């Protein structure tokens, strides 16, 4: 009973942590992009102000039930994936509700949000939303392949499908998986570029081209829900990557340093790249990233 209460409390605390850190990262990313473009840029807490404003807006749009549920689906996905990803190594408080086989569960649940969003966006009847959804799903087909290959390589190599086990293996060996299985890491890192949807893979919500795609009919509180859930999801994904490849983190400071360093990869790659077309993006993921994924699986099977 005690431990259950602890994990529920831990989930709540990690939710707040994920929201704060994710929002700050998004704000910092705007600042960094601005500095790269030789601008001053908004303050790093700009996203909190935006979120508060979005929350204070009224909403009088009705397109049907699925339209209202769409943002909720994304939020549920983010919270669920955060719930099963352990935040810190060996901490009674922050291990969250992980279980054996959570990696497989995670692979499923991470695609659940975009699908719910697709239903919601479909009901608005906005052509931009429909195009955005098709693009998003094709992009997902693209980056899911190297990502799943990387995960399978990990599972074969270390003979486990639990995140905590993988973290413990790294702690025992004293070596990050990033170095002991480099091909896996490369495939996963390249897949991450697509997951974060910064340029050149921002084909889904391209603001000038598609009028922000799937969320074009969502303003106010709906947009707030999407924004906060994408921040939470970003933090969850970064934490997952740190857990799987960089040996997890012993305390929050280390976690923040590692996740931020990892977050810089898609961000900085994005600031210097223009946008791909859909088929270019898909072809990109089926090229080198999948090749490295295949290499990782072969390496895991034969060595």
């Amino acid at each position: 009973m005690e431990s259950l209460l602890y994990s529920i409390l831990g989930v709540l605390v990690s939710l707040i942590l994920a929201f704060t850190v994710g929002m700050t990262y998004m704000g910092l990313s705007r600042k960094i992009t601005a500095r790269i473009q030789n601008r001053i840029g908004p303050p790093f807490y700009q996203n909190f102000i935006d979120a508060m404003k979005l929350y204070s807006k009224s909403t009088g749009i009705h397109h049907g039930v699925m339209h209202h549920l769409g943002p909720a689906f994304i939020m549920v996905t983010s919270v669920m994936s955060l719930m099963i990803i352990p935040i810190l190594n060996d901490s009674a408080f922050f291990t969250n509700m992980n279980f054996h086989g959570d990696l497989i569960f995670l692979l499923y649940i991470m695609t659940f949000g975009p699908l719910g969003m697709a239903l919601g966006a479909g009901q608005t009847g906005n052509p931009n939303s429909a195009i955005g959804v098709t693009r998003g799903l094709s992009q997902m087909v693209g980056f899911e392949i190297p990502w799943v290959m990387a995960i399978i390589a990990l599972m074969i190599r270390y003979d486990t499908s639990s995140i905590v086990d993988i973290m413990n293996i790294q702690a025992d060996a004293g070596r990050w998986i990033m170095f002991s299985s480099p091909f896996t890491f490369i495939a996963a890192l390249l897949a991450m570029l697509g997951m974060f949807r910064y340029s050149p893979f921002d084909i889904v919500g391209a603001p000038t081209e598609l009028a922000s795609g799937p969320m074009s009919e969502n303003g106010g509180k709906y947009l707030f829900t999407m924004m906060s859930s994408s921040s939470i999801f970003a933090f969850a994904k970064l934490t997952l990557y740190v857990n799987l490849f960089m040996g997890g983190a012993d305390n929050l400071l280390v976690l923040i340093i590692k996740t931020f360093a990892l977050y810089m990869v898609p961000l900085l790659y994005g600031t210097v790249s223009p946008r791909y077309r859909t088929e270019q993006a898909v072809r990109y993921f089926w090229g080198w990233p999948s090749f490295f994924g295949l290499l990782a699986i072969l390496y895991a099977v034969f060595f």
Partner: protein
Amino acid sequence: MINDKNSQKIVDHIHNFARKHSLWVLAYGTGCGAIEIPPTMTSRYDAERLGVRGAATPRQADLLLITGYLTTKTLKRVIRVYEQMQDPKYVIGFGSCTINGGMYYDSYNTINALDRYLPVDVYINGCMPRPEAVIAGFTKLQELITAGKADGAAKYKEKLEWYRKNQKNVIPNWTMPEYNW
């Protein structure tokens, strides 16, 4: 007990602070003034440091920027866009053309005073206003929001019939519903 009026005041204060520092702009690029928006947004003048940022669709926007003369044909779309925006929403009229018709004052197919068709919160003077003037306009709007005086949307709802009458006067084939949500 919490005094309701006062607590509402505090909530309004916080909300107004957020609204003021996060204006998402839908630049309706009519007329020649639209060419001043890119320099306002990019590195030379960088409006994003004030929290001003482009919005992709009317649903997400707070601020409608009418950048110049409006033909009667465009006016119809602008009304639609304005009514699709969610409360609280503001309008900035940009350039002389929105104030009194500017150099198109005697044109047969442009409207002269935007005020008669949509509630304008702030006008930016000039033909065309420079980015400094545009940013001054944003700052003015922020001041109005803090003071709680940027209530164009409320005015529009109150006097909807008057606005509709004016709009229907210049738009001959009114095929829209009475209010576009």
